[in-house]
C-alpha cells in the first residue's frame, strides 16, 4: 500500500501564554489524505482546526511549540523546522484564508502578488509570468484586466477568487482552505464552492476544508474529521458521520445545522462552551455539554476504530448494552 499523500501523526501544538503558562491547542491529532480526496475538518471556533492546518504548513508563530510528524509522500517535513518546510510551501501544499481582504497585501496590485509567487518558485518570469497570471485569473472567473487592481477595488468574492488563483499558481497537490466562504454572502458562497469543486476536480487536488459550517462540508467533501477542544473526536466518510455518528458532539453538530437536521426535529443549538485549554482536562472534554454522560466518562476516551473507515472517541461505543 502506497503512503498517503499527506499524513499527520500525533500532532501537538502548545502556545506560550503571557503569564508563563501554556495553552495546549492541538492534542494528538491524526489525519491522512489521499490524492484527490476531499476532507472536511470541522469544529467550533477555538477547537484547534485552523491551528492544525497552519501546523501542517509550519506557519505557526514563535510562541508555538510543536511535536508530531507531518508526512508528505512518506517524508517527515516537520522535523527540520521552518527551513525544512519552506521548500514545500505553495509548490506542494497551498492555503487559502478566510476574508481575503487582509490576506492579500492592500498596497500591492493583485497581479503583482501572483507574479511574485510564480517568480519565487521559478515557474515563470517577467512577461511569461504576467501571461500566466492572466490565465490563472481567467480560470477562476476574474477578467484578466483586473490584475492591475488593488484588493480593495474588488468585491469580497472576487478577492477570494484571486486568492484561490494565487494558491493554485504553482500547481500544488494539496489545497487547504481555511473558512474560505465564511465572510461572504450566501450567493457568493455558492459560487466559490462551485469554483473550488471544479478546480479540485480539474487539477486533481486534494482538499482540506477547514470550517465550522457543515453545509459547506456537505457540498464539497466526501470525508470528514470532527475536532473538539484540540483533539479529534471522530472521523470517517461524511455519509457515515451523518447517518451513524459515533460521538454525541458530531450528532449535535449535524442537528444544529438547519438544512442537515432531519425535517421534523427542532433545530438544536449546543449549550455551554468548550473547555479552557490552558490546564489539563479531567475525563472527557465534552462531558459538561454532553447529553449522554455516564459513569465511564470520568476517564478520557481514546480515538477507537468503530468500523473499517470510521473512528470515534466516545465511551458510548464500547458500552455493553444492558
Amino acid at each position, binding site marked *: 500500500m502506497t503512503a498517503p499523500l499527506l499524513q499527520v501523526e500525533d500532532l501537538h501544538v502548545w502556545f506560550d501564554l503571557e503569564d508563563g503558562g501554556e*495553552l495546549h491547542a492541538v492534542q494528538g491529532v491524526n489525519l491522512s489524505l489521499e490524492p484527490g480526496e476531499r476532507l472536511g475538518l470541522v469544529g467550533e471556533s477555538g477547537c*484547534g482546526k485552523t491551528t492544525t492546518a497552519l501546523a501542517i504548513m509550519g*506557519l505557526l508563530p*514563535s510562541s508555538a511549540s510543536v511535536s508530531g510528524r507531518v508526512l508528505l509522500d512518506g517524508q517527515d517535513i516537520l522535523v527540520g523546522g521552518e527551513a525544512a518546510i519552506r521548500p514545500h510551501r505553495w509548490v506542494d501544499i497551498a492555503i487559502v484564508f478566510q476574508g481575503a481582504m487582509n490576506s492579500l497585501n492592500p498596497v500591492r496590485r493583485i497581479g503583482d502578488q501572483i507574479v511574485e509567487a510564480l517568480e519565487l518558485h521559478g515557474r515563470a518570469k517577467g512577461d511569461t509570468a504576467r501571461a500566466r497570471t492572466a490565465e490563472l485569473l481567467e480560470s477562476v472567473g476574474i477578467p484578466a484586466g483586473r490584475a492591475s487592481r488593488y484588493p480593495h477595488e474588488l468585491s469580497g468574492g472576487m478577492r477570494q477568487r484571486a486568492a484561490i488563483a494565487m494558491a493554485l499558481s504553482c500547481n500544488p497537490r494539496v489545497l487547504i482552505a481555511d473558512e474560505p466562504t465564511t465572510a461572504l454572502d450566501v450567493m457568493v458562497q455558492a459560487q466559490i464552492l462551485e469554483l473550488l469543486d471544479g478546480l479540485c476536480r480539474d487539477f486533481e487536488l486534494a482538499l482540506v476544508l477547514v470550517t465550522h459550517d457543515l453545509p459547506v462540508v456537505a457540498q464539497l467533501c466526501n470525508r470528514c474529521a470532527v475536532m473538539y477542544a484540540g483533539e479529534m473526536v471522530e472521523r470517517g466518510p461524511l455519509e457515515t458521520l451523518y447517518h451513524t455518528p459515533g460521538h454525541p458532539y458530531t450528532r449535535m453538530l449535524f442537528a444544529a445545522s438547519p438544512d442537515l437536521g432531519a425535517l421534523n426535529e427542532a433545530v438544536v443549538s449546543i449549550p455551554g462552551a468548550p473547555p479552557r*485549554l490552558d490546564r489539563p482536562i479531567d475525563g472527557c472534554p465534552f462531558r459538561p455539554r454532553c447529553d449522554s454522560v455516564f459513569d465511564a466518562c470520568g476517564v478520557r476516551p*481514546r480515538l477507537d476504530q468503530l468500523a473499517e473507515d470510521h473512528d470515534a472517541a466516545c465511551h458510548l461505543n464500547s458500552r455493553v448494552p444492558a
Partner: protein
Amino acid sequence: MSEASFFVESPEVGTSRTRALLRTLRHRRSAVIGTTILVAVILTAVLAPWIAPYDIHTQVGAPFEPPSWNHPLGLDDGGIDMVSLLMWGMRISLVVGFAATFVSMVIGGSIGLVSGYFGGKTDTILMRITDYFLVIPDVPLMIVVAAIWGPSLFHIIIVIGILLWTGTARVIRAQVLSVRERVYVKRARALGAGHFRIVMRHVLPQVAPLLIANTVLTIAVAVFDETALSFLGLSDPSRISLGKLIENAFERAAISAGAWWAIVPPGVLVALIILACSLVGGALEDALNPRLRVAHLSARTFRLRPLVGRSKEAL
C-alpha cells in the same frame, strides 16, 4: 482571523479595565521600574523641606566647589549645596508637571467628552479647532505667550497646560465615541436619563482608565516643556526647578569651570522622571489597548518538541 490569535490571549473575558490597569502596574517590569522611580522622586520632592541637608538660600562654601563628604554633589556657582538644590528643584518641576497636566486633562478631557458624546456640529467644530492646535507647534507658542505674559509659576503652568490638551482631547473623544454606542448607554437614554447623569455614571468610568494613561504620558511632556521654557529664561526667577538648574549651569559657564556636578545631575533627574512617566504611561496604554496580535513573522520560529507518544493514554 485565525484561531491562533484567540489562543494566545489570556482567557480573561470580562475583567474590568481598572483591575487590568492595576495588574499591569504590579506585573509588567517596565511599569514596576517606572512606578518605583516616580514614587521615589515624589517622596523626595514632598519631603524636601525636611530632608534637604542645607538651606538653598545660604552660601555654604566657594562657588563651584567640587564634591566632598559634606556635599556629595558639590556646590553651584553661588556656593549652594547641589543636593539640596536638586531636592527643591524636583518639587517645582513636579508641581509644574502635575499642575499643567491637570489643567490640560481637565480641558482636553472635557472637550473630548463633549465632542464625542454630543457628536454632530459640536464635534466637528471642536475637532476642527483641535486639529489646528495640533499642527501649530507647541513650544514656540508657549515661548511667545510666556514672553508676553511674564515669568511666574502660575503663568507657566497655565501656558503649558493650555497647549497640551489637544492630544488628550482626541484620545478621549475616540473612546467616548465607542462607549456611546454601547447598549447600556442607549438604554439609559431610553429611560430618560439626563445627559449629565449618563456621562458621569456610564461614560466617564469607561473613559477614566484611558484618561489616566494619557495623563501620565502628558506629565512627561509637561516636565520637558518646563525645562525648555526655563532654558529660555521664562521660568519664575524666584523658584528653583530642575530646568532652571540646567539653565543656571549653562548661563554661569559651569562647563568652563569643569563643574560637571552642576550640570549632570539635574538633567539625569529630569530624564529619570520623563523615563518613568513614559514607562508607566506606555504600559498602561498597552494594557488598555490589547492589540494582542500574534506576530506572523519574527526572527525566531516555532519550536519543535520531542514526540509525545503514539496515542493518548487512557487515564
